[in-house]
């Protein structure tokens, strides 16, 4: 007897998890890209640290 029958329910759950994983991974890449663009533009300035202000 095979105890590892994959029902349609499991396939759908897997596709949902895979889809969500890919969306999250893409979001991480997008955030990284956005951060790189923001910090390399000409008008980007770092906030002075408290030590520097003193």
């Amino acid at each position, binding site marked *: 007897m095979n105890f590892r029958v994959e029902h349609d329910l499991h396939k*759908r*759950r897997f596709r949902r998890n895979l*889809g969500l994983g890919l969306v999250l991974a893409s979001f991480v890449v*997008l955030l990284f890209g*956005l951060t790189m*663009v923001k910090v390399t533009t000409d008008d980007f300035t770092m906030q002075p640290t408290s030590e520097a202000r003193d």
Partner: protein
Amino acid sequence: MSDASLNTVTSQTGEADFGDYFALLKPRVMTLVVFTALVGLLAAPVGVHPVVGFAAILFIAVGGGASGALNMWWDADIDRVMKRTRSRPIPAGRISADEAFAFGIALAGFAVVMLALATNLVAAALLAFTIFFYVVIYSMWLKRWTPQNIVIGGAAGAFPPMIGWAAATGSVSLESVLMFALIFMWTPPHFWALALFMRSDYENAGVPMLTVTHGRRVTRVHIVVYTILLAALAVGTGFTAVGGPLYLAVALVLNTLFLIGALRIWRRDEDAAEADGYAVEKRFFRLSLYYLFLHFGAIALEAALVPYGLGGW
């Protein structure tokens, strides 16, 4: 347990596929949102970095999708009645209404915050207002209350080019308002043509479309009146900063065809329409899809040609 009974339990416990969640975002409506927002962004006089532009369009699309999910949550009862919407995830039982609500709210908040971080507060505020307008003003209030639902509710679908423009410039200007007005004025004739040949669906669902409350003769007159106003606006836009010779040529051809189509609809009676299966109305509806796509395509092309000294006036 048979497969059939297992499937029933599956539907009720929310084991939906990834595609079901994507369907909640109304991907077909989203394509229009993405396209018009992109044109708004490209037509703006201020350039943005491609990564920022991509992120802006993505978050506008997610915001539009979120309002689609919230619309499906609110309208689940009428979606069950209408043939066109019966197979959507909520009426089909693949996703529960509560789940769709949580999904929509979470995505809406996410899209607005991310757009603010990626671009500016003006674009984010416009996106937030668009979601509010579509869900609360249109879906919850106007849609089931007045036959002018399409006219006022059409504003929700008209905001994306304005948001795209604001994402680039951080402001609202005459040109972005004109792009908004173009979609706003286009929506009523587009949907009323659809309502003419999808009458029974709206009647069964109790949605007070103009065809149901005022009759089909009045709807035909309304289509002509709105098309005349739309034509004047579309051609007039050609003389502004987002227009140019190419846009003007496209607008003249399309608006002539659109006016001819509207006049044909106006001159017909119901017997003639039923005799040929609403062929004229269906043709007008199809033309309306090309109409919007080509107008915004021409605006984008004018903007793309500017660096070569060809676009605009």
